[in-house]
């Protein structure tokens, strides 16, 4: 599991809820579905950069609080007819804990990467 880093426990996120992970390169929103699946998206709506973590979670998607775009967890894509895509991050669940790829977590902030 050396490539994976523990982020939090499943129970830190409520079902149909979200938490925000603060990374140097930007914030990541973690979502938990009603079936206890966890997904991670960049915490920015492709439309006007609304905080997706603050939206209402339903099925495998979240509705952005700013203008009601619906973003799918699996692809990061906006539901038609809106067009846009948010970055997704890989998640692995091990014994009730949530892990992310260390390479994705410890990416250099874009501003410093030169």
């Amino acid at each position, binding site marked *: 599991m050396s490539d994976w*880093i*523990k*982020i*939090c426990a499943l129970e*830190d996120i*409520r079902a*149909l*809820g979200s*938490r*925000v*992970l*603060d*990374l*140097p390169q930007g*914030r990541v929103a*973690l979502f938990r579905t*009603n079936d206890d699946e966890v997904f991670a998206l960049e915490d920015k709506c492709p439309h*006007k950069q*609304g*905080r997706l973590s*603050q*939206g*209402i*979670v*339903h*099925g495998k998607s979240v*509705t952005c*609080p*700013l203008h*009601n775009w*619906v973003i799918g967890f699996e692809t990061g894509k906006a539901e038609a*007819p809106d067009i846009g895509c948010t970055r997704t991050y890989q998640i692995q669940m091990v014994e009730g804990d949530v892990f*992310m790829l*260390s390479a994705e*977590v*410890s990416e250099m902030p874009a501003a410093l990467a030169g």
Partner: protein
Amino acid sequence: MNVMTPIQRKSKLVLIGNGMAGVRTIEEVLKVDPDHFDITIFGSEPHGNYNRIMLSPVLAGDKTIDEILLNDDAWYADNNITLHKGKTVSKIDRVKSQVIADDGTVADYDRLLIATGSDPFILPVPGVELPGVITFRDIADVDEMLDASKKHKNAVVIGGGLLGLEAAKGLSIQGMNVTVVHLMDSLMERQLDDTAARLLQQSLEDQGLTFLMGAQTETILGADHVTGVRFKDGTEVAADIVVMAVGIKPNKALAEKAGIYCERGVVVSDTMQTFDPKIYAVGECVQHRKATYGLVAPLYEQGKICANHLVDKGVLRYLGSLTSTKLKVTGVDLFSAGDFTGDDSTEEIIFRDPGRNVYKKLVLKDNRIQGSVMYGDTADGVWYFQLMREATDVSEFRDTLLFGQNHLGDSGHGAGSQTASMSLDTEICGCNGVCKGDIVQAITAGKLLTLDEVRTHTKASASCGSCTGLVEQILVDTAGGDFSKAPSEKPLCPCTDHPHGDVRRVIVENELMTIPAVINFMEWRTPDGCAKCRPALNYYLLCAWPADYQDDDQSRFINERAHANIQKDGTYSVVPRMWGGTTTSDELRAIADVADKFKIPTVKVTGGQRIDLLGVKKEDLPAVWTDLNDAGMVSGHAYGKSLRTVKTCVGSDWCRFGVQDSTGLGIDLEKALWGSWTPHKFKVAVSGCPRNCAESTIKDLGIVAVESGWELHVGGNGGIKVRVTDLLCKVKTAEEVMEYARAFMQFYREDAYYLERTAHWIDRVGIALIKEQIVEKDDARRAYADRLVYSQKFYQFDPWKAHATDQTIRREYELLKPEFELVS
């Protein structure tokens, strides 16, 4: 072969009739369950599905065939549909479940959909079989007419209805001398009253058409080609072509031959099923509850319902449609809907301006529109049709009704609703910045035909909705003439087909206590709803079961979940309550300290007489609240669908004009009502004299003091569209004000739809009902007031304190950090 995939034979669906209603049904099937069927379509015409209602503009030369094509060959291929173009089905074998086409093609079905449309009605007179006698039904007919117009001079159109007049005008534009023959004395007698019909005839005569009214056709003359028409009275008129446009009849021959029960059309139930349970039917060939339809919107509605049953969802019912008519003839503006003749129990409002050739008639019954006819100025037709469908009580604006929607004081669009004359860069939807050109482009490119589709694609009218009428008009102008709509009770959201009222009723009747219970019981299409229905359900449940329902904060918008208003940069704004707009030096000092301590960038006085702290980080919210709580302040609910402020003037304590203690009453009202959730935000004001400094007459509940007591005003709104309150009643004492206010708020809580402001609610149900429940019936009023008091036992608490002190909830405001250290 992949052994992991179970081999399962898909059901076979066969559609007879490659037209608008049938193909729309297939599209609905594909939308709901794309893998349910193997689909085969038979169509007699050698084209893909096209927009038949746009044949008139093609005849007039305004459009080409390509422009009116709805589904090209690629669409059928992309959806794996087997299309048999130019093949007419000649037999349905119900025993073998097969259909057989005239060229011998055979297709098996598990489900069969009949959408054979209608045939032109041909007068039973001698000569109708002669070359040169043409109907007006499909592309071939239009080609024949265009061809004839190049070779010949004289055309006779038999039939002065919608179709006949459109054909006549088209042929006239193509250069022919056209005579319209009509059996009745008045044109379009099923859609127009005498006055409008005379105006129409005059206008068309001015444009070069000739009319023979009350003329009964006896024979079509000619040996090997049409040469003329003879009438019962012996007169004759010369003709090189005769267009037969006296009406249409449902094409039921194939179904009838197969032994399926037919009357005027193929008889179907509310689920669009024929008497053979494997066979469904939609469109013009259908007879539903004794009615047949020839306009596009009802057919689409049928298609949606039929598809729902074909894919075994089985929840929708077709209950019939209301329709309206618009003539697609250049230079003629004409609109009609509903019952425009009236009887002893109805009233007529008529506007007539012979100079401008404008005529409008509305037929009212009990202050609700029953029907309308408009000629010359049809800009408000869509609006009247909406008022009619929704059975809106128009008594409050009867005096200006005929002058149109603009005269209601719509500040957003006062200048003009004549969308046809607007330039393409005119902004239609101010909320989403959508111009007319964007909407036209979306309708044309996406072949959109309903308001919902336009909303989804452009967002126009998707926010505040005040431009809905304009968007509908652009849709009418762009997409085609006979725009009409099914009954107006709209589904709560795309997850369900149930409207708000049904959901509320079912929750109470079946004692549903949780959101999953409602979603299961009412068979939502989605597992846990969406951002539109969940907040509504949460509200309906907490209103129905104040003691037992466990509020679900994850079904609330972020503002109500975080008890602060999210701003565009992701920070929040915080507004502490100031009772009746009063504060103290201690409170102001505490607010100043909070602003300094948390480096809050903007402090602003709000329109509701309190102070807004803008730019608070979410992580800081609980600490900000704790500091404000410590100074004795609580949440102002500036973020909620709930009681906002009670705005007051200083009243008799200080003001030399004040006649009552408005500030004191305002504070009492705010202390009684705060914390309660409502369908939409709820604003109150109390003014100490009729000078009305607290602006009570644009609030949801406005109190105005007079010498002898208090006036209660309701249903005001100072937002997008200003609406002045209706006077509810006058009472003598402050105690009475408290009871009436509680009762009014509770009635609104129990009766309005979620996200419906009091203004819209009262427009929908009528002020008379509010007066009956709150003023006339003392028992009802007391019961409403008591129910609010009961509900407040559970909901009147400070959510800031609850969040700041509950460690589990407080954790949600904190950021997660990964458990590692960055190596630099």
